[in-house]
């Protein structure tokens, strides 16, 4: 129970779909989702493989608690080698797709090889088939979703799909499920496209059980209550994640105009209050909040665009509601591109979901292009005549669409900031780690976040560590290595349970342990979860080292290391990464080159690479 104990392995080259028993030794060592998929990836492929080649594996993984009444149980992970970073990619999503995959009877879906022609995978419990997708190739995520449901006359099919961005190898193409949830980062959608796989559609009807149901439901009641009573959770429900934009603005940690500044004068036009306030024409952006499967938080926003706005005034197909602004989207289209037009931001967000792209990477790549443009390094002839100045809302939406459709300068933007800036001879303007663009927390104001970014196994990411509280209290680099490591390990475990990281503000590891212990085989304690997280982190590190990454990749762009923050609480500060990094390596039990020592591997039951 809890684990379905079954893996669905699809070889796209051969066109075969087979099941095999889940390796329970691995499940006991790596739980599920992120950790377990990483183990399967490590055992199944050479990390040195071309991310866009047929040798890469693409794994959709649920966790042991996915599909249960534990709050936020709708999570699944997409794990592969990422084409944006050439490192391990681990993207997490909610919605209803993951639970449906679990209900169909599978813990993991492993995709290997490359189909000779476009296909989609159709799963109804034990009935699994690869079907022709020639008529879907070239369609958007939204069109694909509707077409598959209609074809099978099955509105209960939950669909994860790529758009043209994924087909055309946009380096940060994502996999969108349930229309507006996404395994967003590191280009997992481009890997799916490289395999000629357009979509996975699943309708599961088998259900999920747990080992000790009465005990499990007792624990669940308690953890629900903890969430219900937590003021942080309340804020997530009422304001969504975008509440962070006001916090970061006040603090001076809000990356603005490609990180040239750390505060943005336009936040009042794009913050949660702006989302709820009618504009001059009486239009209100926000409609309601929505939950993913099994979630009692419901941070998701459902919004619509003013029909008179220039972006959609003659485009009725966008007059409907869809997923609205969350913080990272608001940050990446707003401050970092200098745009404060809430309808333009919302429209660009719709386009990301419709075409299947990561808004963070797109926004930060566009910001780099804007800086190149303002510095005269690229001109109107490069940009199809579009004025790429910071603050140009039209440039944002036009380029979002061009990138989604892989047209004109959109093809250049689809390279990601690192490759784009290298192409034009200014790699220093790419705000990335390991090739992946930053989330909305500036490392000069939040040094512990900076250390987390630099050491994150999937490149710059705000969801793999949490030194936020410590940074807000003390902006020095001292003492940040320890909370960075501890939170990285804890999050690696939480990401492997099937639950959402947004519970971690209200729960501590013992709450996860108690739920797992009631639900799963094996004795699950806080200590075991800490060690499981550390094992996962080190295995990801091993994957990256074998993929050719090194200490040199654990760094930040020169702007954050050398150019002091111009305003805010961190005025005059740079990120002092070096001192934190050596302390961090030591704490991790890695040598001075960032390689796990033999004792560390032994302690975590990991093997040195063959």
């Amino acid at each position, binding site marked *: 129970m809890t684990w379905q104990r079954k893996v669905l392995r699809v070889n796209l080259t051969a066109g075969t779909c087979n099941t095999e028993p889940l390796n329970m030794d691995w499940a006991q060592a790596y739980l599920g989702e992120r950790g377990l998929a990483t183990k399967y990836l490590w055992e199944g492929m050479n990390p040195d493989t071309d991310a866009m080649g047929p040798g890469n594996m693409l794994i959709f993984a649920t966790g042991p608690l996915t*599909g*249960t*009444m534990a709050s936020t149980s709708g999570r699944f992970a997409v794990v592969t080698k990422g084409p944006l970073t050439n490192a391990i990619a681990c993207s997490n999503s909610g919605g*209803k797709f993951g*639970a449906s995959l679990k*209900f169909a009877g599978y813990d993991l879906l492993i995709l290997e090889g490359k189909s000779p022609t476009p296909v989609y995978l159709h799963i109804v419990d034990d009935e699994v088939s690869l079907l022709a997708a020639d008529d879907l190739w070239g369609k958007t995520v939204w069109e694909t979703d509707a077409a598959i449901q209609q074809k099978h006359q099955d509105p*209960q099919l939950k669909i994860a799909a790529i758009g043209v961005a994924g087909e055309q190898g946009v380096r940060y193409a994502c996999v969108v499920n349930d*229309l*507006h949830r996404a395994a967003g980062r590191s280009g997992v959608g481009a890997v799916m496209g490289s395999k000629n796989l357009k979509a996975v559609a699943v*309708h*599961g*009807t*088998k*259900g*999920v*059980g747990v080992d000790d*149901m009465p005990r499990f*439901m007792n624990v669940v009641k308690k953890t*629900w209550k903890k969430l*219900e009573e937590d003021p942080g959770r309340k804020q997530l429900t009422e304001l969504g994640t975008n509440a962070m934009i006001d916090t970061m603005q006040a603090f001076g940690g809000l990356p603005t105009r490609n990180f040239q500044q750390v505060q943005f004068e336009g936040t009042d036009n794009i913050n949660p209050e702006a989302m709820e306030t009618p504009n001059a024409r009486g239009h209100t952006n926000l*409609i*309601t*909040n*929505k*939950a*993913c*499967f*099994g*979630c*009692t938080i*419901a941070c*998701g926003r*459902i919004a*619509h665009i003013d029909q008179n706005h220039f972006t959609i005034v003659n485009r009725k197909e966008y007059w*409907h*509601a*869809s*997923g609205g602004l969350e913080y990272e989207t608001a940050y990446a289209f707003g401050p970092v591109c200098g745009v404060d037009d809430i309808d333009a931001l919302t429209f660009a967000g719709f386009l990301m979901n419709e075409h299947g792209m990561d808004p963070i990477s797109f926004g930060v790549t566009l910001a780099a292009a804007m800086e190149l443009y303002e510095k005269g390094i690229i001109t109107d002839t490069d940009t199809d005549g579009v004025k790429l100045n910071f603050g140009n809302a039209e440039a944002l939406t036009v380029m979002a669409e061009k990138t989604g459709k892989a047209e004109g300068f959109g093809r250049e933007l689809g390279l990601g900031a690192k490759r784009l800036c290298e192409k034009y001879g200014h790699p220093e303007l790419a705000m990335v780690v390991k090739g992946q663009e930053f989330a909305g927390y500036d490392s000069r104001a939040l040094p512990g976040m900076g250390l987390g970014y630099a050491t994150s196994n999937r490149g710059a990411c705000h969801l793999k560590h949490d030194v936020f509280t410590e940074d807000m209290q003390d902006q020095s680099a001292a003492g940040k290595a320890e909370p960075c490591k501890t939170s990285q390990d804890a999050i690696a475990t939480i990401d492997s349970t099937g639950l959402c990281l947004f519970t971690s503000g209200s729960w501590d590891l013992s709450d996860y342990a108690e739920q797992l212990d009631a639900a799963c085989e094996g004795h699950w304690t806080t200590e075991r979860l800490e060690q499981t997280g550390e094992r996962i982190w080190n295995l990801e590190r091993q994957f990256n080292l074998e993929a050719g990454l090194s200490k040199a990749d654990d760094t930040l762009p020169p702007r954050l290391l050398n150019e002091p923050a111009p305003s805010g609480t961190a005025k005059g500060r740079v990120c002092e990464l070096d001192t934190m990094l050596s302390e961090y390596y030591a704490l991790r039990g890695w040598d001075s080159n960032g390689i796990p020592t033999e004792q560390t591997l032994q302690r975590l039951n990991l093997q040195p690479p063959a």
Partner: protein
Amino acid sequence: MPKALQMIPDKCTSCLMCEMACSLENEGLFNPAKSRIKVFEFEHGRTSVPYTCTQCDEAWCVHACPTKAIVINKATGAKEVIDDKCVGCKVCTMACPYGTVNYNSATGKVIKCDLCSGEPKCAEACPTGAIVYVEQEAAL
């Protein structure tokens, strides 16, 4: 007067806790596909509506059943399926104008909401108060 389930779509976040609680009560595991209550979503999630048997006065299912397998619970007013009598002919699923009686192919019998003998688990599980079990007058 018996109580009734009241649905307040504006409060529904589409988390499907109701479907899980229903399937847990009736099937012993989490399985929305076997839930007696369903949440329907419209326009990318703009609206989501929980929906189940209204326990209507007309009780078409009761009258349509040739084996008298659906009976009225005097205490709750719920129309309940007696599994031993149900032969799976599906006439009730056609008779119900609301589409809230469904055939379970795994058991060969129909399933429908029975108000959990007066303690509906969907209402208990709903985290936002979108499903409440109230006096019928209050629900009007």
